[in-house]
């Protein structure tokens, strides 16, 4: 079939680039993960140590703690972004004065680099002199100190992430919503369906692929978050916001623990893939397959 060959030609550049910049480094990381390697050890060379690193990780309290707070962060942040993002996208489907301006404003957080976001929020939340703790104290008598309160630091990061990334969800969902054909909705209204019914039985199934794709992106990006947290709390207080991205960064950058750091990364990557794969096969793949079978 001629279109098969053409299909591979279309895919080829993508596969080639991802091979050289994704797969090759990955193979290297997997290789290193079976070694003890710290360039500042007495023996600075790579030493093969079998599955020792993998055995160690299972009992590594610091890693497990980091995994825990990361999962908590991802769940809170991504779920809120999805709900808020969807509601805002729906709101943008209506007509109201100044819509274009509001939509532009709403996308502004996206154009700020994570390290800038982290810096601004750090200055806004500096205990006692940042604007937020200052006015919380002055107006409501609430003390907020992200240096001492784990809850305050964690919540600040979740809110910061929601602020930063909800527009991404809104934007992709707008793109999905505007391409929906109007017929099913008209038909449903004629049939007398209520709003919740329309949402559950028509809108949701139709935008599910876009929604899941967005959740995927947010999920894996949240799992990799480094820059903002690095600037804002550095992982503190204690290890309350030491997310996996920060944990791995500390392990391989300042500590130069390349061997074990690689192991953590491989495990994290593996867990991410498994989680996403489960989500994918249960929700998205059946749909895609059905489509393919229609050919």
């Amino acid at each position, binding site marked *: 079939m001629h279109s098969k060959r053409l299909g591979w030609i279309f895919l080829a550049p993508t596969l080639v680039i991802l091979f050289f910049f994704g797969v090759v480094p990955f193979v290297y990381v997997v290789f290193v993960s079976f070694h003890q390697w710290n360039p500042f050890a007495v023996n600075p060379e790579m030493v093969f140590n079998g599955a020792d690193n993998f055995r160690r990780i299972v009992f590594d309290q610091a890693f497990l703690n980091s995994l825990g707070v990361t999962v908590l962060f991802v769940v809170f942040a991504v779920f809120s972004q999805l709900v808020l993002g969807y509601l805002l996208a729906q709101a943008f489907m209506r007509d109201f004065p100044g819509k274009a301006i509001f939509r532009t404003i709403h996308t502004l957080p996206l154009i700020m680099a994570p390290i800038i976001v982290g810096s601004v929020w750090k200055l806004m939340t500096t205990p006692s002199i940042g604007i937020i703790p200052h006015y919380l104290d002055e107006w409501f008598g609430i003390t907020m100190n992200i*240096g001492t309160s784990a809850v305050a630091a964690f919540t600040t990061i979740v809110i910061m992430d929601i602020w930063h990334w909800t527009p991404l969800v809104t934007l992709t969902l707008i793109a999905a919503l505007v391409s929906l054909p109007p017929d099913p909705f008209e038909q449903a209204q004629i049939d007398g369906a209520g709003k919740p019914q329309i949402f559950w039985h028509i809108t949701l199934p139709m935008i599910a692929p876009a929604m899941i794709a967005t959740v995927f992106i947010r999920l894996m990006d949240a799992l990799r978050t480094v820059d903002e947290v690095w600037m804002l709390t550095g992982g503190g207080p204690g290890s309350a916001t030491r997310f996996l991205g920060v944990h791995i960064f*500390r392990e391989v950058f*300042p500590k130069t623990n390349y061997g074990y750091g690689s192991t953590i990364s491989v495990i994290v990557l593996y867990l991410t893939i498994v989680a996403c794969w489960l989500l994918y096969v249960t929700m998205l793949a059946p749909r895609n397959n059905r489509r393919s079978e229609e050919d």
Partner: protein
Amino acid sequence: MSLALKYGASALALSVAATAAYADGHAAWWKEAAAPYQGVTIRGVTESSPPSQYIREVLAPEFEELTGIRVDVETTSWDQMFDKGIKDMEAGTGIYDMVYIEQDIIYSYLARDFLTNLTDFLGENPELRAPTYDEANFTTFADYFKDGDGDLYGVPMEAFLKVYLYRKDLFENAEIQAAFKEKTGRDLVPATTHTEYSEIAQFFTDYGKANDLELWGTTAQAHTGHVASWYEYYESVAPTFGVYNWGIDANNNYAASVANGGAMNGPEAVEAMEWWLSMRDIAPPESPASTWTEVGTTFGAGRAAQGLVYGENAGWIAADETKSLVVGKVGVALPPLADGVKAAAEAGDGYIGYYDGGAFGMPHSSKNKEATALFLQYIGQNEVQPDWAVAAPRVTHTATYDDPKVVAFNEELGGYYDLIKDKGYLFAGAPAYPFHAQVREATAPIFYQILTGDLAPQDGLDQMAAAAEATLTELGYRN
């Protein structure tokens, strides 16, 4: 406007002055020595601190004009700087001809043999040896960049002390003095012991509260997620209680715990921790989120009456009106000490605080060693030092102290240069550990838990000592 730290606008003026003074001297030698390397570009990486900025903005262009050798300096953040240098030297790529070596990482680099022996290199290439460069010109700080044979591996370019800063205007205020005397029965003078320091700190925190001022009695670099807090404790607090070199005994199989012969979790370490935490509790509320950056700004904003502040910051706090509200109101003194620590430091058995700084070294992987050696000597001359010391307060050469410009600036800084000159020997750099960052990172998470109160000082220090020993064993230093 004071003499101040204007490497920006006044840099050009300074450079013109410097070159002019210089031209009649040895310009011919530089031109001749550099002739074979015309058009070469040498590249360096450094943290973007004021002294490095001065190299990039003033010394490098000056050198290029004189010799035709171009110098590109990549300035980056503190975290990135190490990583980039290490990756380059580890892989032998040769991206950099010069790397910034902070004093605490030199032992790691020497252990891995990353750096060129500058003494040998210049000995083997006499035609490159500048008449105005001499290793003997450096202050004793240069000793940190020498190996066992006394050969130099880095040209010092900055050196600071972490000093005790206090607010002269408050300490000399008659009303405050009287109130203090009434309350404590002592005169209000800079503290020499920890008890005195606590008393003053408590007094000013209460004073601030009573008078509704944004004023507290001490600073604390006590960030609960950044290594700055770890450093404050190990560099500046523990030594004043007699716990040196992080409490790890290098001569005793790198023991950290008391049980094995170390001092990391000993009674002095616990006492130091408890004292420091009690100071943190009466410091400004931002302290648990303060790194060296915020401590400097806290003091510069006039929010603290006294504190331990890095010398890098002492300069702008005391003299730069665009950044500091306490210009002209700053005094410097030696940190408060426990009994016997000063005597130990004078005898060379201990130290009272941190002597901090950095140098430029030349990696083995450099591809332009000759041209780089010329530039390193250029920035290592006595002649370029005074302007540099005024633009970015650091002194690396003995002769610099006596320069009229520096003497005048010393006044503005409340005698900070005198302190380095006269008392510098009491301070020390980081311990000679090739595993500096590794042990720090292994113990820091536990340290933060002590700060957040999740661990009691004794328990936390016990765990830290255990973690340090485990890491040292893993790395192969401890058997």
